[in-house]
């Protein structure tokens, strides 16, 4: 029983913290972000397992986490509101070569990030070559050239 409650608590904490951190925070992984993720995993591990290192406990924890994840995905399918709350929605940040300043400021990205995405995916050089840039749910920027 303990293991399921532990898994539920950790699942909830991780969900809330990462949601609050925003979609940009850990989506474009730098080396530092990657190490940070490892450390977060390390800190979580002890609380998840406690002092019970049995195979049954590990199995129960893994199964619980996966079950919660499946349940959440089903709920998100049922409720569009919940899905928007947890995953967010895509948002247009460049429209016909015009950067929507207020939006990117709120989303904590800058023109450099958009240009980087434009170079990566389309080989574009300037903002005015972009028809639409869209900040996707996972924090990546997709570019539609003119």
């Amino acid at each position, binding site marked *: 029983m303990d293991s399921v409650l532990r898994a539920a*608590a950790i699942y909830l904490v991780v969900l809330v913290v990462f*949601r609050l951190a925003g979609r940009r925070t850990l989506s474009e992984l730098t080396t530092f972000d990657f190490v940070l993720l490892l450390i977060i995993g390390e800190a979580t591990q002890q609380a998840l397992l406690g002092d019970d290192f049995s195979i049954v406990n590990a199995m129960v924890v893994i199964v619980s986490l996966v079950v919660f994840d499946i349940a959440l995905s089903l709920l998100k399918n049922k409720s569009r509101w919940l899905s*928007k709350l947890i995953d967010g*929605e*895509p948002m*247009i940040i460049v*429209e016909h070569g015009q950067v929507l300043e*207020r*939006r990117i400021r*709120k989303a904590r990205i800058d023109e450099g990030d958009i240009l980087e995405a434009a170079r990566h995916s389309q080989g574009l050089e300037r903002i005015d070559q972009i028809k639409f840039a869209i900040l996707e749910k996972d924090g990546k920027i997709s570019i539609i050239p003119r």
Partner: protein
Amino acid sequence: MSSEQDELSDRDYPIQEDMGFQEKLWKLERAGWVALSLVVAITLLGVFGAGPLSQTHAQTPGGDLDIRYQRFERNGAASQLQVKAKAGSDGQVWLAIDGALLERFSVESIHPQPLVAEAFGNGMRLQFQPDAQGWATAYLTLRPDGVGPAKSVARLNGQSVTLSQFVYP
């Protein structure tokens, strides 16, 4: 040029937006950052154990017994408890403890080792060798095993103190 107001309006091509909801999410996000910062702040203050708000002490009315302990404990995390006790009329220090201290915590070590440790009522009684001034100081290492509020009682020379602690999961 796109004005601030225009940026708030929903686009429906190439994707359908809901900027009203997005604005609410941003507000929620900002409120969440404040909440996360508060968690860090109250942790530094010791609300989750080991800090100025957690460190406390309890004393008998006569001052014969003074116990320094943590008000907030975390399940499975060791902490220290310091006992300062004055010898009774027989020149010995007899410290009796019972309640949560024994039921909800495992006492991992007692330094210095008591001369005698024996059953006493619902709890146990420890005898320590006092120094030349008639005082004995002992350090107990505790590890909580269980969560929730925990009340313990310590007795010395006919007086008692109550220790109220809270163990976080």
